[in-house]
């Protein structure tokens, strides 16, 4: 059965692949076995991460990128991630709205994913979904992330090239870049560049890159800054050319650097996988125990404080913890 599903996926069966991604996302038992077999068919796609604050035009940029890649006969898989409501657990996944002209193109597979909070790991199911698209034989996989948070950095680690989209006239926006995602950008795209202050935003980013030049030189790539007006398809060909340049620069690295990069990525992914599994299993182990129920009652009855209860449960249930 596993081999049967794997075969369908590598033969590009959209229905089976789509359902498999759904099962992975839902944590359905048995998907692990399929992923294990699928893994040896992966590693051929070029993975591009697109990130940036909400409303900067990420979906539109992705839409135009798909168009240009299709012109060159490349097949494309897209994972468009939108946030899960922390209140209800539901989500509105609206990224397809900007990409609808590709919906009848067999060379394009677009899939929306919700972040789904902490457990199970955002990167975990995203990473597995990438594997599915990769095994389907897509030449390019574009991951469009939600606009804010730590997750962006994680996704950037899984992508070969990370593009950060910004727009002019948001000073605080540039501040946000300074704080974190700035460090993982390979290419910066100043979108909506017909707006006033585009030049200034471009220079701000260039200055910041200059300040960290030493760090980037070592990696063999200095981040570039481009202008674009994605809505009218300006600057998209240049963006793809730059991505290609980055791809070549990665190939030109020394054997040791490539190996070091690869090891860092594999390490990150493995740790992430262990982490989400560990948290899930440990939590199940604790919360399904009688002691856990007793602790709840004790805290409600005032016989115990939650801090002591936490300590007791951890040392009773996870004996390796001190």
């Amino acid at each position, binding site marked *: *059965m*596993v081999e049967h*599903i794997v075969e369908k996926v590598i033969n590009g069966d*959209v*229905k*089976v692949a*789509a*359902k*498999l*991604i*759904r*099962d992975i*996302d*839902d*944590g*359905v*038992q*048995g*998907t692990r*076995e*399929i992923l294990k077999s699928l893994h040896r068919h992966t590693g051929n796609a070029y993975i591009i991460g697109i990130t940036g604050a909400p409303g900067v035009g990420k979906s539109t940029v992705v839409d135009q990128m798909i168009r240009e890649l299709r012109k060159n006969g490349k097949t494309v898989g897209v994972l468009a991630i939108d946030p*899960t*409501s922390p*209140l*209800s*657990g*539901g*989500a*509105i*996944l*609206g990224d*397809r*709205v900007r990409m*609808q002209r590709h*919906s*009848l193109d067999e060379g394009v*597979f*677009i*899939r*929306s994913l*919700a972040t*789904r909070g902490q*457990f*199970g790991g955002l990167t975990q199911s995203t990473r597995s979904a990438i594997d599915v698209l990769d095994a389907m034989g897509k030449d390019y996989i574009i991951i469009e992330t939600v606009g804010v948070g730590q997750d962006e950095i994680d996704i950037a680690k899984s992508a070969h090239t990370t593009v950060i989209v910004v727009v002019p006239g948001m000073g605080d926006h540039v501040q946000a870049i300074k704080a974190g995602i700035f460090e993982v950008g390979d290419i910066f795209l100043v979108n909506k560049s017909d707006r006033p202050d585009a030049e200034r935003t471009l220079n701000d980013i260039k200055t910041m890159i200059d300040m960290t030049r030493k760090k980037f030189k070592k990696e063999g790539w200095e981040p570039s800054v481009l202008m674009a007006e994605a809505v009218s398809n300006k600057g998209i060909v240049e963006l793809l050319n730059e991505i290609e340049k980055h791809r070549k620069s990665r190939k030109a690295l020394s054997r040791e650097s490539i190996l070091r990069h690869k090891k860092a990525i594999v390490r990150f992914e493995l740790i992430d996988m262990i982490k989400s599994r560990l948290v899930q299993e440990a939590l199940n182990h604790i919360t399904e125990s009688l002691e856990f129920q007793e602790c709840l009652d004790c805290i409600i009855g005032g016989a115990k404080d939650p801090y002591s209860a936490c300590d007791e449960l951890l040392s009773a249930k996870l004996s390796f913890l001190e």
Partner: protein
Amino acid sequence: MSTKQRIKVLISVIGLDGHFTGAEIVSRFLMDAGMEVVYLGIYQTPEMIVNAAIQESVDVIGISSHASNYEQINLLIDLLKKNNMSTIPVICGGSIPKQYAEALVKKGVSKIFPPQSTSDSIVNYIVSTVKRENVTGKLNG
């Protein structure tokens, strides 16, 4: 069912119909009910909706209709059949006159929600109708 499972709904406006408010409001309260909603927007053809439903692997398709283009909904039902996707219920909402509503149900639309339907009635209907099918489920017998 694993605690991670969510009902996934596709919401779209079909054909030459630009009334998006209803579709957006429905999307919003389905999200508030804990569902994942793939929102397609307006001017979608039956082909576009079916392709999106395949790629997104949804449990239900919801069509908002305010422009009397019921033939498009019929085509959607036919296309789902052609793709062996008839197990996915199609529900419709909007200003659909009674006689047309009856014809659509006869055609295979699972349920029509006329104006003034409560959000609860829609949520409850989806929850009670959805049958989660999974690829890997077959593995576990």
